[in-house]
């Protein structure tokens, strides 16, 4: 930096932006900082964390045994609450995934360079969250190995095709396309970094495995030209895709005629909620990862603060949607609609869940208006977890309160979860964290090449003739 201001001073000067990479790292320093994590000996805290994740995955396996061996009657779902923790878990995880795509694709299209330190881990989070989400619809079919016949356009024994007018079938296409495109996007981003790991690897096994997945990448600029175009187009494709996925998830509800579900606000409201919960999950993971691996110079306070601002903005949007639901219920003059919101949700048997949701999603994120709280690691860590609890409750409230009291009071009921509901949902955390722990152990959790490209020395018109980040005439400012 030509400027002599320290990061703290820069932070206090609103006309200057914080540099994206602190500590004067050069190109090699960035490689060392990120690739070193993968190459070092297995740290003990990682091993402990991995064991914990594996044990929770064991709970998942046991729950699956029960669900398949006995059947999904083991869940607490009943009449009239036919959808409960299963679909709640599905929407919860799919929503979390959305932040990864937002960071990797939408912020990329908006040229937000600060995304480079968080996009890799956020994309990994997307993929693992989608995998966790898929468990719910897959196993709620009861016999998932037959599910292909009614999920995909494969004719069954009577040669009947699935009904393409059904939102549940749209969901199959949306989620599987989303999962596939997210994996492709993530892998494209990984290849140059896998080549770095291949070239640094000291062991034969590492060279072979990283070598296979690096596809013989040699950093050729003739390749980079196609690569960058592919990356841009994948970002361009992922952006409408991610908006469509949660829109279609919301259609599962909105296309029905149930009061509380049958509303046009659902698509934008679901998308905002998805980004909200996803950013909270990125925060939770990143706060732990940057501390555990000493990545404070790459994942700076500016990154965290920017993410908190997005949490504040989307949390406020979600709060607006909650308010608007009440307004429309009153304004429509529809008795059933009014009943769901003013009686069932606000004061009914699930009022505890409703008010938990409101406090977690609407009240707590508002604390981020204060810079002091927005830049305090303990505060943001706690709020990020609170937000995800709140977002789980949001889906539960939408699903359970609309179902438990429908048009006929004689069919009203209440859903209490059974043990298997809880262990199955808990188990998906095991799946998610096991995969995430493997990711931070064996793959570069920060996009090495992309971080180098935002260093001042990466500018081909920077004739400072040093690659140290310090002393170029350009700044790594986004």
């Amino acid at each position, binding site marked *: 930096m030509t400027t002599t201001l320290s990061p703290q001073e820069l932070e206090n000067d609103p006309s200057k932006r914080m540099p994206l990479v602190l500590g004067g790292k*050069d*190109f*090699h320093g960035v*490689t060392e900082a990120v690739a070193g994590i993968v190459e070092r000996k297995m740290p003990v805290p990682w091993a402990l964390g991995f064991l914990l994740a594996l044990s929770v995955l064991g709970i998942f396996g046991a729950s699956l045994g029960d669900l398949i061996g006995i059947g999904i009657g083991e869940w607490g779902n009943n009449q009239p609450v036919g959808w409960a923790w299963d679909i709640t878990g599905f929407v919860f995880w799919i929503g979390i995934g959305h932040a990864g795509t937002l960071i990797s694709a939408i912020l990329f299209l908006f040229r937000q360079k600060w995304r480079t330190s968080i996009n890799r881990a956020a994309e990994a989070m997307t993929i693992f969250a989608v995998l966790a989400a898929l468990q719910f619809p897959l196993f709620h079919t009861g016999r998932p190995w037959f599910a292909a016949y009614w999920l995909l*356009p494969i004719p069954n024994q009577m040669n*009947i*095709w699935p*009904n*393409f*007018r059904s*939102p549940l079938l749209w969901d199959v*296409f*949306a989620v599987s*396309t989303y999962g*596939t495109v997210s994996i*492709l*996007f993530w*892998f*494209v981003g990984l290849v*140059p970094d896998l080549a*770095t790991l291949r*070239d*640094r690897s000291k062991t034969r096994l590492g060279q072979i495995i990283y070598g296979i997945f690096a*596809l*013989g*990448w*040699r*950093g*050729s*600029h*003739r*390749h*980079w*030209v*196609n*690569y*960058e*175009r*592919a990356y841009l*187009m*994948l970002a361009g*494709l992922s952006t*409408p*895709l991610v908006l*469509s996925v949660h829109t*279609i998830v919301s259609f599962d509800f909105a296309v029905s005629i149930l009061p509380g579900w049958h509303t046009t606000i659902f698509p934008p409201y679901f998308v905002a909620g998805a980004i909200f919960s996803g950013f909270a999950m990125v925060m939770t993971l990143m706060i732990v990862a940057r501390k555990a691996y000493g990545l404070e110079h790459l994942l700076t306070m500016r990154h965290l603060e920017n993410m908190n601002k997005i949490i504040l903005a989307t949390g406020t949007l979600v709060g607006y949607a909650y308010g608007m639901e009440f307004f429309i219920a009153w304004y429509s003059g529809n008795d059933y609609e009014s009943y769901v919101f003013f009686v069932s949700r606000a004061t009914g048997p699930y009022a505890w869940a409703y008010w938990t949701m409101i406090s977690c999603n609407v009240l707590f994120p508002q604390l981020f208006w204060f810079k002091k709280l927005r830049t305090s690691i303990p505060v943001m860590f706690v709020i990020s977890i609170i937000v995800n609890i709140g977002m789980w409750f949001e889906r539960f409230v939408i699903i359970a309160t609309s179902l438990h009291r429908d048009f006929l009071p004689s069919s009203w009921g209440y859903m209490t979860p059974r043990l298997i509901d809880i262990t199955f949902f808990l188990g998906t955390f095991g799946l998610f964290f096991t995969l995430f722990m493997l990711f931070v152990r064996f793959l570069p959790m920060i996009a*090495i*090449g*992309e971080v*180098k*490209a935002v260093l001042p*020395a*990466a*500018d*081909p*018109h*920077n*004739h400072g*003739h*040093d690659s140290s980040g310090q002393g170029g005439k350009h700044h790594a400012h986004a």
Partner: protein
Amino acid sequence: MPTHETGKPFALVGYFDTPAQLYHACEKLRDAGYKKFDCHAPFAVHGLERAMGVGPSRLPWIVLAMGIVGFTAAITMQWWMLAVDYPMNISGKQLFPIPPYVPITFELTVLLSAFGCFFGMWGLNLLPMYFHPVMQHPSFHRATDDKFFVAVECKDPNYNAERTRRLLEEDGAQELLEVES
């Protein structure tokens, strides 16, 4: 100074410390009429393709074609399955309505475009590739770390072992070696 005793020389390979030096060297190679040369860098050096005289990627055409295939396939599939092969009357709704067919058509268009993007990119780059001659340069492992390589192929009509070497050295190229094919 070939790295091996036998075999035909493939290219003169060396590296620079900064993207700026590489950029400048590429401009000179381009202006001197070189066509068969390549750069190898740990990240996409911004605008280097202009300095090298490389045109834009042809990838968008592949993606467009695949997108059209996805769109057409989705419409055809839904129409054929539900309106032709096994017409089913569900709640008396039309057999070929447009709005409910939009989501799947959209998703398949995106999916096929993404496949075009992914496989098209590797195809255009001729990857995966097991071996490439430039990898024989003893420092080539730093092309994915912190050095900015240039490789001028001996097949280029302008190539002259001495002249090309001098041109690159003027900009600070180091460890210039001829690698074999």
